[in-house]
């Protein structure tokens, strides 16, 4: 039985790598750098919380003649602070923040010239932004909230060959037109009037997912852009300098309790090209 499984994996591998030979270009990049997060979450505070983290990001690009498949994930964990300086009984007023993002996009080359390409397509993305604000000492003084959305976005990519300092410039832009949004609460009036009461005995994740709703851009707005400069080092490796911008906003209730998140990242990446690139 073991051998049969191995054979299946072997032939699948052969098939994959055979196909890989025909791929136009694809590569894998590991990024890190600085991610500056700013959050104004009126559900817990009127203040803006700010902080910088060192994110860890992975990107897989599969480039065919007409299509690009892109798989991207990032993770960071940090503590955010506001302008509040006065403390009471050493109250920290510290916001613990965890961010996770996973995107997959497929885009088709619509306009092609000798130096540039324009791609349009769709992106499926999922993010979690967990926050826990320690207002007063002890567990009862914690204010916890989680933003989570799974979105289907319109995606646009522009690439331009620039033989000065860098070799290539890429610009990515996406904005969701429909999202399945989840909120850490028992009442999600911002998306509809439905109510979901979480039964602890049934676990938490299942009911939370059941309690989400599909919303459009008027209820959940997000825009993500990314400018990438690529410098080829040799036929296999290149470096990337990436500036990412990500902003989203929604209201917890209708016209009440706004949540706004702004993330600017400056990342440095090392790319491995699966197929040899000509320098």
């Amino acid at each position: 039985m073991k051998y049969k499984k191995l054979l299946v994996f072997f032939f699948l591998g052969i098939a994959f790598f055979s196909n890989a030979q025909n791929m136009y270009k694809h590569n894998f990049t590991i990024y890190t750098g600085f991610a500056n997060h700013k959050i104004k979450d009126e559900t817990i505070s009127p203040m803006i919380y700010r902080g910088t983290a060192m994110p860890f990001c992975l990107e897989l690009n599969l480039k065919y003649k007409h299509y690009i498949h892109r798989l991207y994930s990032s993770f960071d964990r940090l503590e955010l602070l506001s302008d509040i300086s006065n403390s009471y009984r050493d109250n920290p007023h510290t916001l613990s923040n965890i961010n996770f993002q996973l995107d997959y996009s497929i885009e088709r080359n619509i306009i092609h010239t000798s130096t540039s390409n324009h791609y349009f397509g769709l992106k499926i993305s999922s993010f979690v932004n967990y926050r826990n604000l320690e207002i007063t000492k002890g567990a009862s003084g914690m204010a916890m909230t989680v933003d989570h959305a799974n979105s289907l976005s319109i995606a646009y990519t522009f690439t331009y060959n620039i033989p000065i300092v860098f070799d290539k410039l890429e610009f990515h832009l996406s904005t969701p037109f429909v999202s399945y949004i989840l909120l850490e609460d028992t009442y999600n009036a911002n998306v509809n009037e439905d109510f979901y009461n979480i039964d602890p005995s049934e676990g938490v994740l299942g009911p939370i997912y059941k309690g989400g709703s599909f919303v459009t851009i008027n209820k959940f707005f997000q825009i993500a852009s990314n400018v990438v400069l690529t410098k080829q080092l040799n036929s296999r490796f290149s470096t990337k300098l990436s500036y990412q911008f990500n902003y989203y906003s929604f209201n917890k209730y209708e016209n009440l309790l706004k949540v706004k998140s702004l993330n600017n990242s400056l990342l440095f990446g090392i790319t491995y090209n699966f197929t040899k690139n000509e320098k």
Partner: protein
Amino acid sequence: MKNKLLLLFSVSLFIVGCEKLFLGDEPGDNPKDVFNQFWKDFDMYYAHFQIKNIDWDSVYSEYNTKITPSSTDLELYSVLEDIVLSLEDSHVNLYTPFGYASYDYYAGSPSNTRINLTNYIVPGASHANIEIMEYRNVQDNNFGYLLLKTFAGLGEGIEFHDKRYFYIDHIIDEFYNKDGIIIDLRDNGGGNSANAEIVASRFFDKRRLYYKQKYKDGPNENDFSDWIEYYNEPDGSKQYHKPVVVLTNKRCLSTTELFVSAMATLPHVTIIGDTTGGGSGNPVFRELPNGWSMRLSTSYSALSDGFIYEGKGIPPDIPIWISTEDSINGRDVILERAIEFLNNK
């Protein structure tokens, strides 16, 4: 190199510049700004103006002139404390370096608390979860005595409930052959509603509506959700359906009142003692720009029959108070009445 520096400079400018554009302004931290933010937060999020007939605009008019940007922090505290106390809401609190402002919801009421428990209860051994609940036998009777000290305690990770409350299953096992159980909630100030649901479910016979809640869901005073209904149902390996008496006093508040409302729906349960504290606010913590913190109520609740108990409390089926004379004589007449009630069943 010049191009790179220009790029980095542009990026930095963009990062700094777009904060105000995307996130908006922040309130200042001088006393006037803090007062305004305090008033605005209540104006937007506080859920009890209507049911308590409070004119929040007139509160602003009354206190606004007392605070200026150059007021001292102590003057600011004095004003905010006055406002907090005037709301008469046990779930509204202000945390400052000058103190903790909170409405004393049981002030002036008799304590109606436990007196000389050992006169009525057989002393028993300690157990692992004794800080949240104790169980003993009632002297000279085949009744169990369950003292629920608190419903506090959070779940681990993403769980809502504190696992220690599943100890109730062991207690139900121990008490299963008793002729009745006395559940003493007196002085239990609340905690986590998920814990209360666990304990109550061991007494349920079927799925029942036990309370309803309205959330403040808009910026206007009358912006509320529809009634949201909460149910509980039998859970655990065994449920106890023989006579149960629940003892309450004025200090029973918040989650403890949810427990009372759950038990009050059951035909085999009788509530004895004093009216509960009357706090159903589902409070949230918020912070003020100067670092002070506060809690405010964002909802109000009603029993399954529609009675809104915020500020009023849940009345017992059999009201009884411990008089000063009883207290001096060391008599817990509430517990005595509970034993008598069960004996007459």
